[in-house]
């Protein structure tokens, strides 16, 4: 019986309930195995069916288990820092070999580890110690430091060939056991047998070979002659810096590969307009980006628009954008890259698409590109931006796109769009803008979402029936949305029930769920306003501390709900004395209570206001208006 089958048999005998099938290896070796498991590398070698059988996000133990029972026998690699050929070579240098039938990696865990054989070209212990002298006191084998810490943090340089990655930090990498160099290791994966090697390892071996050539007698003679002329060439007293050797171990090569792949993925050639968004998940800005994209497609035709997600590799809701509009997850292709590589990659990507227009909608990288390369980019495309609101930090200071980034990019922008009049006016006044600048800033009412809900008459019916008062609140539970006010309002109005929808991340608002008043009910996440039980509530409560014109208020207005709302940002452009209940003292729970009581005291009056509001938003916030205004701003005439 081969060793692996022996191990596997023992593994199968071990109960999974003990949670350590790899215990068959002995606790010390099992611990080493756990340190070595790199799920992403392992999964990349499995078939689609095998991956599916492991479930969506298998944990370290599940991968280790699968490796011992399936992968080891098939020669798969579970560890990015085990390179079979390097191990064999280095073992041979010690006069040893892996016995026939044994799995080299398991041999290393049990034998090579104790002999401190480094089984990868990616790590050089002498280099690591020389460049990180503080590690001389590391209590274990120095490779252990790199394996358990160094490979997850950008500052550690493990080899004369450098860091092996783009230098971008990833705080969560250590928990996922996802070494920062994995994107480079998996680069051009189809050209390599990942069980044996990879683009990165082949590249590092090539760099090391080139360095070796410098030691040749012929080169040394040339170097000695040069040092006769300039002794400084030896950089005496200084530590050597990593070598660079394109095309391997070279950032540009990975970047070019990622760019080509991103274009291939979506069959992109030339695009008229590119819309830059931070990520692809639900948010108010994402909905506006969706409306903008649909309008641009309608104006310039199918295939004229592409959306590029630049900041977070989150790709949950491509359906936010119209069918036929390619959505490129460029953020995913930049994982691990630091600045300025990220900016340059976006710049390179945009230039290849040769767009006539580039529009930033809350893409941080897009704003950065405009600020730092806007002058050049504006020569080849019209640059535009969409602004919604500034943000407020925990000290109460404003920050965000309308503050710094706008200032740094304004001169390069052909136009800026606003979803509220309020923010536009604020900026015009803050900068004392002359007409030429002012004229580039445009307020556009975001068209209503297609929601069929109609809560007309619900308030009066529920009041006439004497049902208990129920208040609807919906949003993220964060500092901006002021869920803490909702709690205070609930305490002041014990007779009222508040239904709070949204993801309850209470850590952000410093609340203990156990402390919530009994009349506050957490309803959980919701997927679109239409999903909310509008027939069972009396009014919509909105408490945010800052905003543009919020979707939830528009959608409440659109469905005819009476609304009590904080007078922040663009809210007063919608909620006025004639259309709802506006709270000026936005931090004061009692002020909200007073407006809610006023609303409840006159259901007929509240219903009238809601009806006026409903009419107004249906009249003003229309797709037709939006597209006509956009066409004017873009100078697109009246075609299409």
């Amino acid at each position, binding site marked *: 019986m081969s060793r692996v089958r022996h191990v596997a048999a023992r593994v199968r005998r071990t109960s999974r309930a003990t949670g350590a099938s790899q215990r068959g290896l002995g606790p010390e070796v099992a611990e080493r195995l756990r340190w070595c498991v790199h799920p992403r590398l392992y999964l990349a070698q499995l078939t689609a069916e095998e991956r599916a059988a492991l479930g969506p996000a298998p944990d370290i133990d599940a991968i280790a288990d699968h490796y011992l029972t399936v992968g080891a026998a098939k020669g798969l690699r579970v560890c990015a820092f085990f390179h079979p050929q390097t191990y064999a070579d280095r073992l041979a240098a010690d006069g040893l070999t892996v016995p026939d039938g044994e799995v080299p990696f398991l041999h290393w865990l049990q034998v090579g580890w104790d002999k401190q054989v480094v089984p990868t070209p990616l790590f050089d212990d002498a280099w690591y110690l020389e460049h990180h002298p503080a590690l001389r006191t590391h209590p274990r084998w120095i490779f252990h430091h790199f394996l358990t810490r160094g490979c997850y943090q950008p500052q550690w340089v493990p080899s004369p060939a450098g860091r092996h990655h783009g230098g971008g930090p990833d705080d969560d990498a250590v928990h996922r056991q996802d070494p920062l160099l994995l994107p480079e290791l998996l680069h051009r994966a189809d050209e390599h047998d990942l069980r044996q090697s990879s683009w990165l390892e082949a590249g590092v071996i090539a760099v090391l070979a080139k360095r070796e050539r410098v030691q040749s007698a012929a080169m040394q003679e040339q170097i000695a002659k040069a040092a006769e002329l300039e002794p400084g060439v030896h950089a005496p007293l200084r530590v050597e810096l990593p070598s660079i050797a394109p095309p391997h171990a070279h950032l540009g090569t990975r970047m070019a590969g990622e760019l080509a792949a991103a274009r291939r993925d979506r069959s992109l050639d030339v695009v008229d307009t590119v819309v830059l968004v931070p990520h692809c998940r639900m948010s108010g800005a994402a909905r506006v980006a969706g409306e903008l994209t649909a309008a641009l497609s309608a104006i310039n035709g199918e295939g004229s628009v592409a959306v590029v997600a630049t900041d977070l590799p989150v790709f949950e809701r491509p359906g936010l954008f119209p069918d036929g509009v390619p959505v490129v997850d460029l953020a995913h292709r930049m994982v691990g890259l630091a600045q300025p590589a990220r900016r340059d990659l976006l710049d390179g990507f945009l230039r290849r698409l040769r767009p006539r227009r580039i529009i930033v909608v809350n893409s941080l990288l897009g704003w950065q590109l405009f600020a730092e390369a806007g002058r050049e980019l504006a020569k080849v495309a019209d640059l535009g931006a969409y602004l919604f609101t500034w943000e407020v930090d925990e000290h109460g200071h404003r920050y965000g796109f309308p503050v710094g980034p706008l200032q740094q990019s304004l001169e390069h922008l052909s136009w800026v769009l606003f979803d509220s009049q309020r923010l536009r006016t604020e900026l015009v006044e803050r900068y*004392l803008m002359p007409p030429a600048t002012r004229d580039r800033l445009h307020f556009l009412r975001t068209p209503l979402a297609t929601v069929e809900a109609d809560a007309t008459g619900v308030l009066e019916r529920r009041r006439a029936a004497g049902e208990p008062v129920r208040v609807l609140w919906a949003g993220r539970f964060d500092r901006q949305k002021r869920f803490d006010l909702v709690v205070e309002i609930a305490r002041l109005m014990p007779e009222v029930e508040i239904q709070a929808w949204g993801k309850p991340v209470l850590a952000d608002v410093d609340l203990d769920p156990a402390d919530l008043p009994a009349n506050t009910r957490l309803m959980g996440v919701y997927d679109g306003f239409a999903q909310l039980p509008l027939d069972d509530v009396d009014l919509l409560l909105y408490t945010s501390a800052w905003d543009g014109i919020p979707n939830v208020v528009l959608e409440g207005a659109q469905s005819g709900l009476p609304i009590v709302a904080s007078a922040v940002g663009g809210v007063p452009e919608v909620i006025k004395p004639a259309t709802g209940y506006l709270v000026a003292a936005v931090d004061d729970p009692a002020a909200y209570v007073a407006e809610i009581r006023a609303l409840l005291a006159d259901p007929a009056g509240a219903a009238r206001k809601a009806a006026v509001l409903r009419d107004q938003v249906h009249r003003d916030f229309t797709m037709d208006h939006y597209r006509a205004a956009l066409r004017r701003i873009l100078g697109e005439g009246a075609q299409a």
Partner: protein
Amino acid sequence: MTESVTPDVSVIVTAHSETVVCGPTMRSADLAIEAARAHGYVVETVIALDGATDETREYFDQQRYDHWDRWDFQEADLGRVRNAAVTRSTGRYIAFLDADDLFSENWLVEGIAVLDAAARDGRRVIAHPELNVMFDGGNSVLVHIDQSSPLFTPWFAYLRNYHDSLCLTPREAHVAIPYVSRDIPNGLSFQDWQFSIESMAAGWEHVLVRDTIIFKRRRDASLGQESSNRRSIVRKLPAMAIDRVHDLARVGKASETA
């Protein structure tokens, strides 16, 4: 603007290529000027345009700035344009403001009060805000050190300029010690530095005005090399000679002929 009486202070905003970034600057200046006038001070308000770009000229041509005098210069040097603007201005005191920086609202009121009080005591004083708050490109705060502070040491002036150029200064100090223009990169900072040293050497006392701030926009932090160039030039100033530096800013000891 024409004033029949001698203005107490001339506020001089210098601009070259800035546009909307001056919005916050000008609003802060107007607030500080309004506060000074409310205290009964007469203020001369000047926008000094030095080789201004078309966009800058257009920006300041806005009607909303009609209560400022607009003076055109072609000096192509911040030091020289400041000297020229001083010559043409009429205030007892001069307050410079760079086109992308901001005054705290109380800067002029408190600064004039400090200078007036010093003048009554017969002291020759240049006033600085208590703090310079750097913003935009990384935030930091420079706490000005009063010359009478035990923390003050003249040797420090070898390494760094003690005093930012945005100070409130009696006209005669600027007339006696004009900014030099030197053909070195980023020379302005050196001009400030030299003004700081030479004014101290000439017996002017640099004091700070409590609770006042000037906010300075800082985009570019990579000035290390230029700064070291400037250090080498500073060492050559007569007042920084090794046998004289000890007396720098010791009021009463300094050579008036420096």
